């Protein structure tokens, strides 16, 4: 038999001023199952809470309804008080007679009556409440960081420095990411490699970090605290333990004309190669697509010259399995490629290049050693046109968003060019200058005022070649949309930032959601910017949206803090408001029919399939099962289930049904 206690709060005059609390207490006392009904000035005060605790003990209450403010305000307070008095906290409910009643209605009979009804509803609910217990999930205190760019490096270092194991997986032969390709960074113009390489070395030497380069995530199973990741270690062709990184093999390799990915095609590399001299690790890999041995079946020059005998031409890909408790996705971005700019002749004219290519030209360690030379004939360009928003904010190219960093790096490019070619002319076509950030606007102004970059507001319609010049046909809207033609020697397109080509498949592996442009989605755009909607998976850097370096680093540290928080105890405890599929004695086992329509509907992929077997191991039926680690308790599955085999703890069918019956 239910023994419910009702506690009505005056909230000073806030409730009592409009609602006749005494009448309410009297009415509530007469509800079936209510054995105790009192009012008090401030229920949330110490004496108020003590009243509840005492009543629980004295009257042996089986449920408590506190009629006061919004549960969003004080539910935790009162549930804690109940727990302290030995009552399961989930047997306490609140009737919101302040925000939803006394504050929004006039003083009078109708308002008091409403308060009474609100309490009756909650009394009927609480009678059906069942004790619930927080869900405990063990935590493997190892983090998996995907991507070894600046965001991944930062996240890995922060987590490792907090004392936890980290596995850092990078797809390319070296960590460093796009930042390693940059020449100087805005708005300080400090050398990108100079600030990044010490971090890369730190990663390599950190005792808590295991680094897998030239490796990719194959699959991820499990849930928060308990993931199992399979990682493909692509065949490097080189034994990392033996290789000293002396570089003889690279010098001897006969294939020397392969466009270097690291140099964005501006320079060449060999078939056995490291992306750049600062690579971490510094051991080379063999590019089997271009290696003579793999094409023609003979060569082996690298093997012959390797003193350490570290070359492994017959090496195979290897798949390793690791257990991790959290994942940080820091897989970075890509830029829009040539096929998307037919009107600019990008891909057709060698002197129309993209921003990353310009970075390599301007980099002191780049193929031209920092001299600005145009790709077609190696001459120093006298006039360079920079085009911002190349592809960004362009619905026609499928990219309506702003790529965020182009305004700044275009200003930087114009500046670097002017610093290196003093007499050169730099024109920048822009749409808006978005320079929000510390010292950013000042930086752009410097490019214009001190370095003399000429900014034209408008888009370029077309670029074509004539008499060895690139004719750039643009417009200046500040001059009344006057067409403008510039004869340039080189054009740099600030091409849009896009998600990596395989971002979608990564998102599907991780079971995190992604936006229409395949950027991974955060759990909440404002308040949960580093979490995903899958618990235990976090985001860092430009895989979530275009970002500059400081932002990527900040987000990485944020993700690392989340991971460290998760790893702060060996078990994690979660609210038990989750869905459950019923289990019944044989021969029914569960009323679930196994139609699995709930499976698709679940935003968290929390529905699993369980095979029910007889003693011989034959499958009798397959029914749904909720993974308590993944379920967040939205209840969409409950509404969908035709036989109500699935129910949501805390908001069960019976509870809600009885609330309605109390109307």
């Amino acid at each position, binding site marked *: 038999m239910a023994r419910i206690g009702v506690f009505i709060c005056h909230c000073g005059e806030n409730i009592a001023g409009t609602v006749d609390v005494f009448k309410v207490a009297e009415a509530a006392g007469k509800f079936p199952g209510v054995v105790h009904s009192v009012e008090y000035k401030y229920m949330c005060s110490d004496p108020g809470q003590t009243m509840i605790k005492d009543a629980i003990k004295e009257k042996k209450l089986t449920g408590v309804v506190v009629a006061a403010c919004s549960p969003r305000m004080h539910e935790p307070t009162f549930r804690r008080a109940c727990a302290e008095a030995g009552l399961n906290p989930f047997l306490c409910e609140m009737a919101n007679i302040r925000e939803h009643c006394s504050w929004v209605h006039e003083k009078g009979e109708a308002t008091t009556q409403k308060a009474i009804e609100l309490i009756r509803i909650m009394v009927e609910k609480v009678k059906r409440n069942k004790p619930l217990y927080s869900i405990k999930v063990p935590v493997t205190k190892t983090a998996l960081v995907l991507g070894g760019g600046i965001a991944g490096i930062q996240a890995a270092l922060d987590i490792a420095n907090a004392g936890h194991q980290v596995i850092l997986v990078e797809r390319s032969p070296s960590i460093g990411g796009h930042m390693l390709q940059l020449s100087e960074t805005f708005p300080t113009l400090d050398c990108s490699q100079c600030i990044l390489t010490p971090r890369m070395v730190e990663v390599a030497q950190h005792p808590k970090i295991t680094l897998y380069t030239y490796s990719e995530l194959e699959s991820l199973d499990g849930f928060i605290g308990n993931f199992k990741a399979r990682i493909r270690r692509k065949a490097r062709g080189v034994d990392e333990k033996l290789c000293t990184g002396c570089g003889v093999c690279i010098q001897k390799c006969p294939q020397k004309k392969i466009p270097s990915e690291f140099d964005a095609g501006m320079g060449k590399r060999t078939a056995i190669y490291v992306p750049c001299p600062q690579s971490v690790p510094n051991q080379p890999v063999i590019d089997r697509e271009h290696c003579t041995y793999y094409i023609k079946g003979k060569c082996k020059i690298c093997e012959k010259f390797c003193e350490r005998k570290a070359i492994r031409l017959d090496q195979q890909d290897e798949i390793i399995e690791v257990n991790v408790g959290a994942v940080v996705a820091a897989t970075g971005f890509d830029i829009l490629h040539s096929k998307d700019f037919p009107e600019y002749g990008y891909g057709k004219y060698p002197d129309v290049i993209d921003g990353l290519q310009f970075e390599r030209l301007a980099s002191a360690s780049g193929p031209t050693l920092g001299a600005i030379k145009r790709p077609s004939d190696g001459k120093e360009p006298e006039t360079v046109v920079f085009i911002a928003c190349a592809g960004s904010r362009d619905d026609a190219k499928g990219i309506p968003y702003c790529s965020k960093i182009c305004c700044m790096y275009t200003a930087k490019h114009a500046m670097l060019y002017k610093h290196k070619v003093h007499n050169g002319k730099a024109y920048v076509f822009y749409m808006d200058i978005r320079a929000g950030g510390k010292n950013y606007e000042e930086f752009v102004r410097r490019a214009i005022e001190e370095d003399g970059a000429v900014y034209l507001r408008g888009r370029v319609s077309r670029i074509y070649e004539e008499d060895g010049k690139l004719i750039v046909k643009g417009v200046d809207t500040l001059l009344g949309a006057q067409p403008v033609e510039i004869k340039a020697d080189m054009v740099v397109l600030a091409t849009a930032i896009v998600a990596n080509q395989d971002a979608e498949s990564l998102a599907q592996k991780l079971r995190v959601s992604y936006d229409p442009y395949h950027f991974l989605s955060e759990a909440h755009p404002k308040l949960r910017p580093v979490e995903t909607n899958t618990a235990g998976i976090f985001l860092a850097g430009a895989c979530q949206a275009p970002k500059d370096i400081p932002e990527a680093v900040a987000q990485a540290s944020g993700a690392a803090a989340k991971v460290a928080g998760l790893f702060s105890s060996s078990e994690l405890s979660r609210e038990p408001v989750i869905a459950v599929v019923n289990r019944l004695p044989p021969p029914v086992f569960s009323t679930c*029919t196994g139609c699995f329509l709930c499976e*698709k509907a679940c935003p968290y992929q929390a529905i699993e399939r369980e095979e029910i077997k007889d003693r011989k191991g034959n499958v009798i039926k397959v029914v749904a099962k909720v993974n308590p680690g993944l379920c967040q308790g939205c209840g969409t599955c409950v509404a969908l289930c035709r036989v109500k085999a699935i129910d949501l703890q805390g908001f069960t069918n019976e509870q809600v049904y009885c609330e309605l019956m109390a109307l």
Partner: protein
Amino acid sequence: MEELRKKARELLTSGAVKVIIGYGPGSGKRVRAVFVRKPEQADLLICDDRCLQNLAVYLTKPEVKALGKAAVVARLPTLRAILQLAAENQLTDGQVVALGISPEGKMTELSQFKAIEEFLAGFSFELSAEEKATLEKLDQMTPEQRWQFWQEQFAKCVRCYGCRASCPLCYCEKCLAECNQPQWIPAASHQIGNLDWHIIRAMHLANRCVNCGDCSRACPVGIPLHLLNQKLAEEVFKQFGARSGMKAAQEYALCNWKLEDRENFIK
């Protein structure tokens, strides 16, 4: 018909299937479902205009499953029901052989879901002009008239659950109508319970009903229940572009969504 009997004999003789679910002689001029388990009984099988029942209804029954692999004589709605059941994990590929009967009466053996999908792709799943006209007629009534119409219909309902028993997609072991904690649907056949039952059944069949019409045929008091299902089938198609029973890996429109879904009533 001979073709069908021959195929049935073949399948049973070779042991490819253990039972043929088909139509056989019933009382009077009627036909009824028969379960042919021996090749010599194959001549019992009938296939003509009287054979309308959706035999897929038997495929999920444990007693029938216990007989072993089945072949089922399947008109278009039955084929769709098989795919829909597959989409809902009630049948697995290769578990059942469909003896597809085209509207012209031609038989095709379809032993894989893929074959059924391809076969069905050749036929439109549009309502007939007649069916559309009936829906249209109801749509054009005033809400009061519609209410009147349906109340008169539902008043006849005796809750025999014949609609449920005849439906290939009502395979739930414990129907919501039998749930009593809480009792969503009042058990007795009074007006509210009847309304609840038919609303709930229609909602549960939205984007699942294959429009075989067995519910209405089974109804002893002649309630045109198929209209409810047809109405929702048309809505689902109009709003979400989905049809039931087209693919074995079909997506269910109501556990799916699109950002572009458009309604005009949410403020």
